[in-house]
Structure formats: C-alpha cells, structure tokens
C-alpha cells in the first residue's frame, strides 16, 4: 500500500515537472540592465553620414518593427535638439576588431533608463561593410543592444556577438533579421 502511494506521488511529480518544462518558454535571450523610457525609440544621424549607412539604418529598423510588437526604432527626421534617443554614425576606424559598436549611458538607479546612445558602424571592416547581408546583420544586432538586449552566446539568434566564422550570426547561420528569441527579449523589456 505504502509502495503504491509512493509510486503514485513520484509519477505525479514527474508528470508535473514534464508539463512545466514544455509549457515554460525557453529563455535564451540575455537582457542588459538598461531600457528606454518609451517603447518608441528615435534614431538620428548627421548629414555627413553616407547613403549606404542611412539605407541600412532604415532596413535594420524595419527588420525589428516587422517582428516586434512592444517596441520600435524609428527615424527622427526633425531638427535634432533633444528629441532623439540614439545617435547613429559611421567611421573609418582602423586598429579595432569590431564592425559595429553601441555605447550606452543610462541612469544609475532603477529602472535604468537610457540617457544617450551612440551606434557606430565601422567602415574599415570591409568584409562586413561591403557585404549587404553582413552589414544588415550587424545593424540589426546593434539595434538589439539599443533596445537593451545582450549578446546571446553561440545561438542562432541575431544577438550572437560574432559576424563571421564558425557558429557566427551571419557567416555561420546567415541571419539578418531578429529571431523569435530576440523578439521575446525585446517584448520582455517593453
């Protein structure tokens, strides 16, 4: 009698555990402490930024907007002032190994709202800059950092931190748009 009861209890616990593991979402995304106050995040670029970069900023923002329901990155076309959240630029930056970089200043107290951000594309990394797919992959990746996502290991997600090479975001997996896990990360933030 006692043995049967133990077996039954064990089975119930096992079934509940299995059900929970199937029903819970798989959290692979990584979140930064910061986020923007508004779910509408405006980016701005100066008129010296070339047409190639401008085109890819727009393509990157659209790639997120097409998949993200909770937050958007939008072009701020008015006179700058203080109305934008992210400054986008390009530079021919030699002596570094990155093709995209996002610098974020945020409040030191919760909820850690972003004060300012700068997203820089590196034109000196020609393997990326001259490759449409790779460049889009980098812009979309850096915009993930703009939202507040962190790098995401060797996963098949846009937040994978490497552009080329084995297990990389673009060279390895061919990704140029946010994946479900990336979108879930943004939606968890906003």
């Amino acid at each position, binding site marked *: 009698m006692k043995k049967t009861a133990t077996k039954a209890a064990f089975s119930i616990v096992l079934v509940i555990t299995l059900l929970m593991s199937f029903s819970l979402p798989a959290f692979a995304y990584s979140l*930064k402490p910061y986020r923007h106050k508004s779910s509408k995040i405006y980016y701005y670029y100066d008129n010296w930024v070339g047409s190639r970069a401008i085109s890819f900023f727009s393509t990157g923002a659209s790639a997120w907007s097409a998949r993200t329901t909770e937050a958007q990155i939008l072009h701020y076309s008015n006179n700058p002032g203080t109305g934008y959240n992210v*400054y986008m*630029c*390009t*530079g021919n*930056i*030699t*002596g*570094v*190994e*990155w*093709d*995209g*970089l*996002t*610098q*974020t*200043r945020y409040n*030191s107290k919760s909820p850690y709202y972003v004060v300012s951000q*700068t*997203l*820089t594309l590196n034109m000196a*990394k020609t*393997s*990326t800059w001259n490759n449409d797919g790779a460049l889009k992959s*980098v812009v979309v*990746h*850096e915009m993930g*950092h703009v939202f507040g996502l*962190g*790098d*995401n*290991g*060797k996963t098949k997600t846009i937040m*994978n*931190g*490497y*552009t*080329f*090479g*084995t*297990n*990389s*975001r673009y*060279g*390895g997996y061919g990704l140029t748009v946010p994946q479900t896990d990336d979108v879930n990360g943004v939606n968890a933030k906003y």
Partner: protein
Amino acid sequence: MKNTLKAIVGFGLIVVMFALAACSNQSATDYSQYEKIPLNASWSYNYESVNELADNCDLAAYVTITGMETDDKYKSYGVDLTIYTAEIRESLFGKKDGTIRIVMTGMVDEKERKIYEIVDDPLMKLGDEFFVFAKSNEDGTYTILSGPQGRFEIIDNMVYSLNVSNEQVAKYNLDSNITISKQSKDDFYAQIKESVAKR
C-alpha cells in the same frame, strides 16, 4: 630668524607630505568606484581555435603592460581608444623583444571618473600580463585578434582563455569558439610553435 627658518622648513615638509600623499593616492586609484559606460561590440570574426589565431597573427607573445595613453582621434564617432605600451617577455612569433604598442577600444576618463569599455573585452591595467595573438597595423601599433579571443592568462604555468579566467568576460562572452582552461603552458606553447612553423 631661527623661528622663520623653522617655519619655512615646516611648511616645506607639509608640502612634501601632501605631494607624497597625492602621488600614493593616484597609484592606488580605486577604479571600482568609477562609473562604467558599457560598449557592446559586434566582433567581426569568431576564431575557431588557438591554431587559427596562430595562423592569422603577426605576433604571438607573452607581454607585460607598462604604459597607457588615451587616443581620441575617433571621439566624434563615439569611439575612444587606449594605446598600451607592452614589453615582450617571451615571443613565439613575430617581433622578438622590446616594446610594442597595443590599441584597444575604450578608455579610463580620470577627470570624469568614468570607464568606457567593451563589456566582454575589459581594459588592461599597468602590470597586467597576457599571452596575446595580435596583428600589426599600418601605423606600427598592434591589435589583439578579436578582442577577448586573442588574449590569454597564464597562472601557475597553466593557460586560460579570458572567458574562463576573467569573471567579466566569462559573464559576457559566451559566443567565443575558444575556451581554454588549465592547459599547461608547455603544451600551449608547443601547439603555437607547431602552427606557426607551418606558415
């Protein structure tokens, strides 16, 4: 007259003491109190192995950091650089001895008490020692391959990739194909020598 002399000597001593205190305070700067401004990078290339690093470097050497200066030539693009002076202790490939200058993204702003650094590629400090795989730049400086990937620590004759030995890198660099923990220095060096011999 004697009293005046005593006063001058006393004042001089106080000045010297203040100067010494200021110097010792500077050398013991507590960077943990500085505000960190995070930089998040998309690294261009994920190296597969130590052999691939060895195949693609211009320098494979164990170095000690002996100097540092900021370089603000790209500041208008939101990018600060630090140029480190490093002394070559042991070289397995490339420049054999002397000093090199290593470029890194990020900087310590002493005035504003802020540290700008790539979250998975922490800045180096004076006295730090690393084994680095680096490529040479046109201006004579060197850049470590793929940031944290090309930098290794040797502790008690055992080699560790930075994403193992450095807590911050371990937290933020989960993407690297290279993870080395407790490989003997002799094995590590033999592996590199074998690789570079084929070049």
